[in-house]
């Protein structure tokens, strides 16, 4: 099992390097430090969401509502700051807690009522987005944030974009949780066999609930970097980000059925998509159709990664069949 994951990561690293070489050769001013920072700055939100989507998928679950949660948190951050008059850091903590509450709702419905995660988060996908639109009556937008907050989205620390440090910090935290703590070990056990995990004395419901609350909290953080980067908070923030996060995580070798997967794999998936999106806008031949082409290539990449993943299984089955008929 672990062997299969390693080969997947190796493929992804070579893909990433191939992308680099190709875009550096054909793209205009691709491999400059500024552009590299652009790639990082533009993939922070998707990166954060992919990070917390990994433990959820490891337990065999899924979260379609994480993009809407980001939107709701962005709105409440704006409301707390502008209308409730809270200082930015207090409003930020409020937004993160709102995210945690959204995650708690998802987790509670999934664990206490044993409901399928896909359908629960499909319901909260419209509910959270609906609440964001209702609170702002659709039209209201929050802007003119103080410089101290905008620093989060456009400033630099030690020459590196601020939000890159946030992504790095959250990435390290989630990597340690998944790969170096008992929590991570229990996510895999639950993903492979939730009954087996329960008989081994693991608190299955509590661990699954933890994953969804963590996802909500980090979606709150992502709403802050999104709002800071954009300079404004509106009800359509983060629309469709959950599908991009799922694409990156699956591309990174994590199995949608649970158990197999890695946080660094997901990060490689995010990087591969980010470099693809950025690179295409710099290749003169395809510059004018960059956005559509990146959508088509992302879909194709995802399908080939999946099909490649099942190759060993099918080869083995084919060999076994051939073995029998030889007798």
């Amino acid at each position: 099992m672990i062997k299969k994951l390693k080969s997947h990561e190796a493929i992804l690293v070579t893909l990433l390097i191939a992308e680099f070489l190709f875009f550096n050769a054909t793209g205009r001013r691709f491999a400059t430090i500024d552009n590299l920072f652009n790639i990082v700055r533009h993939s922070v939100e998707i990166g954060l969401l992919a990070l917390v989507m990994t433990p959820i998928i490891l337990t065999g679950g899924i979260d379609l509502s994480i993009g809407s949660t980001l939107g709701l948190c962005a709105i409440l951050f704006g409301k707390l700051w502008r209308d409730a008059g809270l200082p930015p850091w207090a409003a930020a903590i409020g937004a993160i807690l709102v995210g945690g509450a959204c995650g708690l709702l998802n987790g509670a419905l999934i664990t206490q009522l044993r409901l399928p995660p896909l359908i629960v988060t499909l319901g909260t996908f419209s509910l959270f987005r609906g609440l964001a639109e209702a609170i702002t009556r659709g039209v209201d937008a929050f802007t003119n944030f103080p410089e101290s907050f905008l620093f989060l989205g456009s400033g630099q620390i030690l020459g590196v974009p601020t939000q890159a440090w946030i992504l790095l910090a959250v990435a390290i935290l989630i990597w340690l949780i998944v790969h170096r703590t008992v929590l991570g070990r229990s996510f895999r056990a639950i993903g492979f066999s939730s009954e087996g995990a329960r008989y081994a004395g693991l608190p299955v419901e509590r661990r699954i609930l933890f994953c969804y609350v963590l996802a909500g909290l980090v979606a709150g953080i992502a709403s802050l970097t999104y709002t800071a980067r954009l300079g404004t908070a509106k009800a359509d923030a983060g629309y469709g980000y959950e599908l991009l996060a799922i694409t990156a995580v699956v591309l990174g070798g994590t199995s949608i059925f649970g158990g197999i997967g890695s946080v660094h794999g997901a990060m490689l998936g995010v990087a591969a998509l980010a470099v693809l999106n950025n690179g295409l806008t710099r290749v003169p031949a395809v510059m004018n159709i960059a956005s559509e082409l990146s959508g088509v290539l992302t879909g194709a990449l995802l399908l080939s990664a999946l099909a490649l993943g099942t190759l060993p299984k099918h080869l083995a089955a084919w060999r076994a069949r051939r073995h029998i008929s030889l007798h």
Partner: protein
Amino acid sequence: MKRHFRELSVLAALLLMLLVLALFTPNFYEPQPLLSRLTAAAPKLILACGAALIIISRQIDISIGSLFAVCGTCAGLLAAAKIPFAFAIAAAIGIGAIGGAINGALVAGLGLPSIVVTLATMVTLREALRLAQQGVFINLPEGAQWFGLAMKPGQSFICAVALAVLVVLAFATKHLAAGRFIYAVGSDAEAARLAGIRPRAITFAVFVLMGALAGLAAVLNMAQSPQVDPNSGRGLELEAIAAAVVGGVAVSGGRGKLWGVLIGLLLLVCIGPALTYAGVKPYWEKAIQGAIILLAVVADGLRSSARKGLFD
């Protein structure tokens, strides 16, 4: 009575809503706008029936909206190129079936998870269409709208076709072996294999059917106006799945009735207009729809966990 409890509870909700509308906003029932509203919902009913069969076979398909747009645009281009309209309709259904076959081959053939396969096909189809058509409307030739009939007969014809599809599929899933095989595969694929049913073939066939239905829905939608909007179909996949879930189709597979899906769809489709008639601000619509889906899902959870407790 007990076995239809779930569908009847949704019917009760729908009747309650219609009653409230009748009392407070009677012109909801003005014949002409009501017929137009039902005609606009007809394509969604066909998509919801397809989505229901997919969910009953314990799979999911979120590429329905993109396939719907591709089929509609292709049919529009063919019709605009003076190809006989009947041929354009057949082409749309054929292209839909091919799209469904691609999903089916990947899910049933390679055993890939349907949520991720259809996520990939959704994105690929939508962006490829945008690449080709760039969002430019397609003007249909003269006789295309309402299939050449006058408007009122055209509208009733479209509603009739949608209801016919519902009746045929409901009959097939109740009385034909193929229909029952879908329930069997959704309920327990291994038991189906041991009973001599071929689960992978059934799953493949359901995806192909879903594609063809998407093509047919696109044609019925196209016939309602003289122009084809290539961006159409955005979000239809979630509406179709929501209608099936609210209509009592169990995501765990093997359970659900198509007439329940009809009621689920009517409930969700009525919310928008109901808010307009009641003069409620439009920004409440999405939150209310999300709440209804969650309520239906929680109701399912309470009911099956009560029963599952016995069995677990």
